[in-house]
């Protein structure tokens, strides 16, 4: 499916509706994935159920959809993106196929990764989505390399690099920003700040005034934005990507949002105040967008239609994934390496 890039001449309502569809699709996708993952993994005291269709740790971006939608609306198909363990939203927003993604989560050979990656490694290189990553901050140097490569090859592709608020305390954050700046690479850093790193409130673990200030300390221009307001994210990303495309070098976007769910699907997040979550839900990005759409005069029925379209896509994806066959065991030995691959013990 094509990424939802609003047409340049779209009305304000159509523009937002286009972004809203991306968010609705992510929300529906993750709700379905969560449902299919019950009992998927042992952690946080949960026990596993071998029957779970979606296996392993499942990190949901519920409540953070506006960041993915707003940023990716400003990326062309040929642009690149690197992501985190919480990457469904980025992948969908970059235009990956919903069915192929659901097949991947179900561990099918028709999945984006042929069943080899699952949620934590979701990727669709065909749309420039170079991969989720199970290692915090590990996508940063890869994004730097992709941007350096574009520069060397004289390509006009730019790169968007998503990471969490917890990732700014790992070394590659410093190294990657420094590198991007000295080589003036076409790279948009996006800190998707959902205020938590697993069970830990990130604030207490972070010295200084946060991601944007830290980026400035390394010489990058940085902007902060309300990450639940998809139009604000979109506008900021538009400005920053335009700067990058005009050769201004790397830019930094700090998007403040909130992790509505637990760290992984089995995490009840008992370590935080329920009230905090309820307050956060009041600024749910889909809810905000719907209010804005109504204010822009978009009919409730058109919004409902978009919701239904997203839901239908996911139902179709679920059906296809449920019916698709798992990889043959022999596929475990492919794509390891050409020289000296696989089978040898």
């Amino acid at each position, binding site marked *: 499916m094509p990424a939802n890039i609003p047409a340049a001449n779209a009305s304000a309502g159509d523009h937002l509706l286009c972004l809203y569809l991306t968010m609705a699709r992510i929300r529906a996708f993750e709700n379905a994935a969560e449902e299919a993952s019950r009992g998927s*993994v042992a952690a946080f*005291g949960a026990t596993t159920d071998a029957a779970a269709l979606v296996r392993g740790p499942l990190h949901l971006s519920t409540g953070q959809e506006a960041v993915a939608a707003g940023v990716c609306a400003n990326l062309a198909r040929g642009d690149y993106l690197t992501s985190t363990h919480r990457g469904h939203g980025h992948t969908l927003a970059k235009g990956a196929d919903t069915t192929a993604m659901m097949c991947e989560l179900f561990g099918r050979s028709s999945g984006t990764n042929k069943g*080899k990656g699952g949620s934590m490694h979701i990727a669709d290189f065909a749309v420039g989505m170079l991969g989720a990553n199970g290692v915090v901050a590990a996508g940063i140097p890869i994004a730097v390399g992709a941007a350096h490569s574009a520069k060397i090859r004289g390509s006009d592709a730019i790169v968007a690099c998503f990471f969490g608020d917890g990732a700014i305390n790992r070394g590659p954050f410093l190294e990657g920003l420094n590198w991007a700046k000295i080589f003036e690479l076409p790279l948009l850093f996006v800190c998707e700040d959902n205020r938590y790193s697993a*069970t830990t409130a990130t604030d207490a*673990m972070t010295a200084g005034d946060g991601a944007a200030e830290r980026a400035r300390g390394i010489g990058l221009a940085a902007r902060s934005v309300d990450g639940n307001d998809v139009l604000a994210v979109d506008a900021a990303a538009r400005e920053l990507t335009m700067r990058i495309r005009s050769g201004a070098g790397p830019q930094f976007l700090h998007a403040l949002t909130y992790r509505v769910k637990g760290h992984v699907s089995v995490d009840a997040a008992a370590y935080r105040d329920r009230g905090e979550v309820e307050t956060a839900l009041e600024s749910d990005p889909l809810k905000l967008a719907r209010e804005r759409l109504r204010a822009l005069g978009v009919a409730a029925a058109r919004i409902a239609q978009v919701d239904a379209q997203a839901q239908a896509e996911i139902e179709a994806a679920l059906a296809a994934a449920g019916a698709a066959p798992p*990889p*043959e065991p022999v596929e*475990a030995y492919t794509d*390891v390496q050409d020289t000296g691959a696989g089978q040898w013990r």
Partner: protein
Amino acid sequence: MALMSYAQAACLALAEVMRTDGRVVALGEDVGHGGIFGQYRGLRQEFGAARVIDTPISEATIMGAAVGMALTGLRPVVEMRVVDFALCAIDEIVNQAAKNRYMFGGQGRVPLVARLPIGIWSGSAAQHSQSLEAWFAHIPGLVVVAPATAADNYGLLAAAIRCGDPVIFMEHKELWGLQDEVLPQRTAALGKARIARAGSDLTLVTWSSMVHTALSTAGQAMQQGVSVEVIDLRTIWPWDRELVLASAARTGRLLVAHEAVQAAGFGAEVAATVAEELGVPVRRLGAARIPVGYARTLENAARISPQDLLREMTVFVNRGGGRRSMA
């Protein structure tokens, strides 16, 4: 004597040592809320935030800081969640923790325990499933431990904290819920293996989660008339050569099985040693040299199944240790 889980046994060991030794502190991501596997549950409540330290996501500095703590009078227990993330702290383990005492001529010591859980954790794919005990066995200065039971997780963790040199402590991610009887105050000795089942036809050396596969499979082999002696190595370095050599000399055959990739795995060390010292037939059974895939079929291809192990044992004994194909 109490029935408890592998995770609870670790909590108990740590709590007991912390009660009697004020130098012991625990640090790592999310330990304050009990650790995501419950392996630190209750410790923050008992010992406070100064001794059960939540850290930023800074693996290199978690490990490096632990070295600095250890050099200056503390005994840190470091949580890395999975060995895969400890790859972000390898310089600190290998170039700093392991070499410090030697490099500085014994001026300081680094009594730290680094908990680096290993193993396939269902559906977690390539970056959360590795077993890298062979790496650390190769590095002078490190002790390497891989407990298979709750009792050993209790006894060996307590021993590791008291060791005085850096210990790489490798719990298995799929054993956290495993329950068995733990005898408090009984610390296990580092470097001592355990004959988990006696037998006469074949010595099977293994460790960690594979011990359980080995024990159940050995029962089935017995029904086929093959008597297998199962040795739970428990400590990978220093490994209990005496016990293994004595057993292999008795049975006349050695099989090493482990979840880690077979190529350059620690099984090669055990097999090579037995071949050198005794000249008896040896074999290894480890994982294919492939990353762990996500889909169940792929993940299973990266596992050693009970059937694989049973076949290997019976064929080995029946054929008398001859060649096998290079499949």
